[in-house]
């Protein structure tokens, strides 16, 4: 399934209220719980924080891609969050992260996980598109932007 098919308004959080790395991961995990995508928030947060402990997924240009394999999901699961003010995610360029793509995949679905991450890697190459996304003010607008792209 294409990444764009997974990005629905209920898995988009705009604006994020968190101010720290652990908070934003929890906020997006709770967004997925509220959307009925996961039930065990703690397991998801633990898997994501474990991955972050190996190296931050905060990239350049205000983008972060926290991701993990976890038994807490049965299929590839995505959440998108936007923090116009930015959050310190220990990004490689030291700048605050504003656009978050959170990805979870079951351990036996590495193929779709890699494809989705590769989609995100391509999306993040377009600075103009990312700037437009960061400027979005509602989940519906984010979904629409992905559909139009």
């Amino acid at each position: 399934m294409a990444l764009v098919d997974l990005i629905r308004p209920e898995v988009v959080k705009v604006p994020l209220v968190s101010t720290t790395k652990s908070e934003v991961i929890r906020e997006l995990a709770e967004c997925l719980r509220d959307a009925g995508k996961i039930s065990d928030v703690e397991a998801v947060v633990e898997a994501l924080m474990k991955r972050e402990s190996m190296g931050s997924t905060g990239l350049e240009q205000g983008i972060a891609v926290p991701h993990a394999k976890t038994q807490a999901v049965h299929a590839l699961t995505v959440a998108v969050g936007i923090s116009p003010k930015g959050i310190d995610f220990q990004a490689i360029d030291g700048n605050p992260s504003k656009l978050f793509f959170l990805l979870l995949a079951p351990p036996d679905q590495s193929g779709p996980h890699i494809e989705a991450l590769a989609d995100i890697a391509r999306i993040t190459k377009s600075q103009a598109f990312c700037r437009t996304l960061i400027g979005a003010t509602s989940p519906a607008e984010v979904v629409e932007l992905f559909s139009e792209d």
Partner: protein
Amino acid sequence: MNGPIKKILVYVDGTESSITAAQYAVVLSRTLRAELSALYVVNTRALEDLLKARIFIKAEEEEYKRDLEADANRYLNHVQSLARKKGVAIEAVSVSGAVHQEIKKYVRESEIDLLIIGELSHVRSRRDEFYNEAERAMRSVSCSVLIVKDEDRVWELYDALT
């Protein structure tokens, strides 16, 4: 093997549609008495891109590569089993690289007459169209391409093979 199609290749990526394509390939291979191969491509290009983009760390790249190699074995074994059940000989091949390039290379080097692929996912954006690996392969290979649709009908055809 006197017809126009002597060598068939089915591209298997583990999706349900690619397994349906494999079933149809078995049906066609039996009917046309054509040689059948199944190809799985471990997408190491994507892994390299993720490492380059710093989304992956090195340990992660290696872990996911092992996962994909295990997927290749699992799916190719399944396709081999589908062919064996119908008495069709099949060559199962796993390679690594960029998916569309590896498919194109295999088609050329093995002188494939017909590439069979599963139904393409719905294109939601120009980006999808450009980056869908099966679609890119379809556009770039030198042989004819057959896109398999209607899973139920294919299952009936496969099931009816005695």
